[in-house]
């Protein structure tokens, strides 16, 4: 019987302690297989709780952050009255939404209608499990990390399509179809740019990708290959914004056109799930950008030993989240600055600009590796 093991310090700890505790059990129940299975299950529960906690815990923080960032861009204050500077505003929002009335419109396909938000939530959760937060802080360190992310990330669109279709509303349907077309197109660039990362790191394992960026700041992939790395980073930024359906690529929601797009008919908890999924996707995509381009959990060492010693004293997970929040801030600034392109322009942009540039980038990257690497 194959029982996978989870390798991280907590996992070792659990594996060490489960046999010790099982010694107290009656003798006929003791067996090594059982210990392994129990240890695995305990580990799995810990992992699931950890992923959920990171994701769901970060969503209210991000919503608060978004409201504050957009407020300050717009010369206003944002939430101020609940808690210190409105810090617990989103908690009130979440509680309120949980206790709202929930109903589906009369013509809706009820099963699909309620299933859709769950599907949307699954994708970012699964991606989060693959991200290495620190040297030994990764939930599942699979060797096929990048292909798995590409596969899973496209899963979210299914929920959006289902949600829009099952709502029995023309605006929802239009939003869902737009979203479908957009996601499928941008998936290609998204995959291409991850392929570029795989090419320069030589691995599809996210931990290996991070470890290959160890060293100074110049070793991060954004700087490691001059110019190309930066272009790659920008392209990743664009295509991941589109993947997340965030403004300026939020044509699926497009409040001014479609009053809310695919989630027009959703209310209460299902709507909260769409809302959360949007922000969790933001975390996972920022984490992916950090892992692939910004050196993951590595400190931004600059090559001067005196400074670097201090920098490396800070735990990697702190560096990781600092970079993630920087990325999120970038996404937010972009969201609150730009206007939304039209649906056909969005497609044009992907097929006529992003994809050719991506292909050129791949070629140039290959040439660089052959010549310099």
């Amino acid at each position: 019987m194959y029982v996978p093991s989870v390798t991280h310090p907590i996992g070792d700890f659990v594996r060490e302690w489960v046999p010790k505790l099982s010694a107290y059990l009656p003798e006929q129940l003791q067996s090594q297989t059982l210990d392994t299975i129990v240890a695995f299950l305990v580990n799995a529960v810990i992992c699931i709780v950890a992923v959920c906690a990171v994701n769901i815990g970060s969503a209210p923080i991000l919503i608060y952050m978004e409201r504050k960032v957009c407020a300050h861009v717009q010369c206003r204050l944002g939430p101020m009255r609940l808690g210190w500077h409105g810090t617990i505003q989103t908690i009130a929002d979440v509680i309120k939404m949980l206790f709202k009335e929930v109903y589906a419109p009369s013509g809706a396909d009820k099963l699909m209608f309620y299933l859709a938000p769950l599907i949307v939530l699954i994708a970012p959760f699964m991606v989060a499990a693959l991200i290495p937060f620190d040297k030994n802080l990764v939930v599942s360190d699979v060797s096929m990390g990048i292909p798995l992310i590409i596969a899973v990330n496209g899963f979210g669109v299914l929920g959006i399509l289902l949600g829009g279709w099952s709502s029995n509303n023309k605006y929802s349907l239009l939003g869902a179809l737009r979203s479908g077309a957009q996601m499928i197109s941008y998936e290609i660039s998204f995959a291409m740019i991850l392929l570029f990362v795989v090419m320069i790191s030589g691995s599809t394992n996210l931990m290996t990708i991070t470890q290959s960026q160890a060293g100074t700041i110049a070793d991060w992939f954004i700087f490691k290959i001059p110019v190309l790395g930066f272009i790659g980073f920008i392209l990743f930024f664009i295509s991941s914004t589109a993947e997340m359906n965030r403004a300026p690529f939020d044509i699926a929601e497009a409040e001014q056109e479609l009053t809310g797009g695919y989630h027009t008919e959703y209310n209460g908890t299902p709507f909260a799930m769409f809302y959360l999924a949007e922000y969790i996707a933001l975390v996972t995509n920022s984490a992916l950008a950090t892992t692939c381009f910004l050196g993951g959990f590595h400190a931004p060492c600059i090559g001067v030993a005196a400074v670097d010693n201090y920098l490396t004293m800070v735990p990697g997970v702190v560096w990781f989240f600092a970079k993630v929040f920087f990325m999120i801030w970038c996404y937010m600034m972009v969201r609150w600055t730009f206007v939304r392109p039209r649906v056909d322009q969005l497609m044009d942009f992907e097929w006529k600009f992003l994809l050719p540039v991506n292909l050129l980038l791949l070629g140039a990257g290959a040439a660089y590796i052959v010549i310099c690497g």
Partner: protein
Amino acid sequence: MSTLPPGFRIQRETNTEEFFINMGPQHPSTHGALRLALRMDGETIVELVPHFGYIHRGMEKQAESMSYLQYIALSDRQDYLTAIQNNLGVVIALEKGMNVGVPEKAEYIRVMLQELGRIASHLVFYGCFGGDLGGQTCLLFGFKEREMIHDILEEVTGSRLTTNFFRPGGSRYDVPDTFIPRVKAFLDHLEGAMRDYERFLSKNIIVLERSVGIGILSKEDAIAYGCSGPVLRASGVNFDVRRANPYSIYSQLDFDVPVFQNGDCYDRYKIRIAEIHESMKILRQCIDKFPKEGPWRSKEKPVRLPVGRYYSEIETAKGLYATYVVAATTGEKPYRIHTRGPSFPHIAALNKMVQGHKISDLVTIMATLDPVIPEIDR
């Protein structure tokens, strides 16, 4: 195709399945209670039929039982973005009937408040244009400076929106002493702010992509449909009531009437930005020439109009605003008052502009027409 809903006219053979979308009466981008019935082929609009009347309040019927003074107050509720301009439109018609003149200082007060109102309205346009394209930040930028204008208006007239300020022969109050310095400070502030705002939106590639060549209204169509104001001037027609039939003291002021040739959404955007600058120019001239002394209104008379028909037209921020007063008996009450709002023809021309465009373009075009629905429905 005999089963088309009322209003749709285009007969065409199609292989694809057409469907109808109902935009409004409550929709974020219809600028109020307007309903647009769209006939769609995929995301492309085949035909559009506007349905008015969701905010028809029977103002003209009501005006028949009101006195002229009360109608000035009621006219605030037509184009509420620049209520001060509506006031002037009504008052000029009344002045023609009463045959009273306006002293110089009152004229300057009028022109300055007019131009402040125009800037306020165009700032709302800037905000709504950006906001409707998806950039919420523009909306807030536009309203930020507008609040300063409303502060000035509140100090002068006593109300932020519904000003009810002008009276035949002048205005209700004199302006306070702080008025001129405040306007000056505001203009200095606006200059810097507009530089930022233009940098923010005017050259933005996405805005260009979404507005250049979108919703083209040809010169002939613009005139034929009776469009006016920035919409008409963006189509290459040099027509501004302030120049063509100058009222108040506009003939003594030096300002340009910006005219653009393409008639697309981007020109309609640019022309309003240019008009903000022109209004600032007018305001600066007025500040220099503003008479400190002198009467601020003519002799107060009861507002009674002799029998006759009186017509006035002014250029509001949206376009040609005309008031037609019919007095059948000499007295305080009109027999009939009719208002010609500028937005009404613009929406009529909408169908011409949107055909063949996407639903997103409709939002852009609506934003650049800058309609105020209560002024259409009255």
